[in-house]
């Protein structure tokens, strides 16, 4: 049974979340960027970071997206006990993406993987990606993901004996990436689970607050920053702004590790659905 009211409310919430994410960075992301800009010692890097902060202010002032790569929509939905998961939920989110694309506007980025034909509205087969979890409230969280950084992400099926080599794997990911993912980056690291779970955890890690790190995350972050890649690969102290780790238990013979690279524009927003 399709519930048109719920579908409409979800479309509204999705559109609002996508507008918020495209135009304004979350407070924790902005604070982390400002802290890095104040601490940077390299002259070109300081100038790059100043340009980034100026761009963020300008996007808000002009109410336009921060970056022209407005990404593909990745959606995390929490469903309270009284809302069943029905096709109307998916329809509502897809409608919200179509509306946001036309109104904000967002760049239509979604294409057929083989023919490369653009769907024109950022929806398509499997797009938007919608992840559902049980929760207390009905909320839509969006994480628009640009391709520059997504393309340098990496997964490794490490050996159980290689636990100590996880920081090296993460640093190596940035060594290979260089300036391509628009550093300074945020790195979501998924450790454990299965092949697919590690990747999902890495992306979910980007939803965690980035203005604090535990000791392990800081150790990895320091290893990445020692590379000196710097903002845009032009050199400097600031290559990674933060590393966030999410874990799951795994098979005794496995150690999946995934690194989801996110450019400095770690765009995300959560909107509660009005119903």
């Amino acid at each position, binding site marked *: 049974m399709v519930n048109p009211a719920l579908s409409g409310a979800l479309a509204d919430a999705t559109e609002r979340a996508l507008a918020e994410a495209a135009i304004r960075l979350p407070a924790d992301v902005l604070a982390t960027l400002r802290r890095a800009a104040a601490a940077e010692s390299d002259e070109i890097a300081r100038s790059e970071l100043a340009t980034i902060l100026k761009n963020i202010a300008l996007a808000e002032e002009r109410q336009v997206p*921060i970056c022209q*790569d407005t990404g593909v929509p990745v959606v995390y939905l929490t469903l309270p006990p009284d809302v069943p998961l029905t096709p109307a939920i998916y329809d509502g989110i897809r409608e919200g993406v179509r509306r946001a694309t036309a109104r904000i506007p967002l760049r239509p*980025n979604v294409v057929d993987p083989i023919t490369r034909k653009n769907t024109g509205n950022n929806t398509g087969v499997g797009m938007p990606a919608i992840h559902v979890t049980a929760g207390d409230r009905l909320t839509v969280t969006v994480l628009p993901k640009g391709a520059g950084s997504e393309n340098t992400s990496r997964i490794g099926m490490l050996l159980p004996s290689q636990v100590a080599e996880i920081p090296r794997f993460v640093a190596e990911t940035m060594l290979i990436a260089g*300036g391509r993912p628009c550093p300074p980056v945020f790195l979501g690291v998924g450790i454990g689970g299965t092949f697919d779970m590690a990747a999902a955890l890495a992306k979910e890690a980007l939803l965690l607050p980035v203005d604090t790190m535990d000791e392990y995350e800081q150790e990895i972050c320091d*290893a990445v920053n*020692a590379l*000196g890649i710097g903002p845009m690969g032009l050199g400097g102290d600031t290559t990674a702004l933060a590393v966030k780790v999410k874990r799951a238990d795994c098979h005794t013979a496995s150690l999946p590790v995934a690194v989801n690279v996110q*450019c400095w524009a770690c765009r995300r927003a959560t909107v509660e659905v009005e119903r």
Partner: protein
Amino acid sequence: MIDLTTPLGDEVLDLRAGDRVTLSGTVCTARDEAHLRMIEEGIPFDPEGAVIYHCGPVVQGDRLVVAGPTTSARMNALTGFLIDAGVRALIGKGGMGPGVVEQLRERGVYLALTGGCAALAAARMELHGVYFEDLGMAEAIWVIEADHLPLTVGIDAHGVDLFEAVRKKAKTQFYQRFNI
């Protein structure tokens, strides 16, 4: 700060990697699909002294909403014919491969625009035309008039590549830290 105006000429040969410059005048956006189309059908604008901008903007009607740089390395193997035709500068982010560094020698430069800074870039740009619009918003060639676009010389006309120098240092640091 050095101010450049299109069409560009031999003044680009005086630039050094690391120089901060501004660019005013006409730039043409081009990404993967536009390069492939130009190789097949020819360059639809006058390439002499021209500037290519690796960018897929957000356009609404005739309004350039935002227009930051895309990853230039994707065009590594597709760029030589443009420089041969007289293009003097490439604008993008992340740098390009050793092949392009050689193609630019004594001819042109690669200018780095801060990645993600699409609102700032668009604030200094105006839309003037379009070629290959059938390729879609991201892949079409948009003709843009730029006003003092702030850039850093990433690769100069003498084979100096700022990105490669940083990459080399990063490799050394990596090997040292992890004892490889």
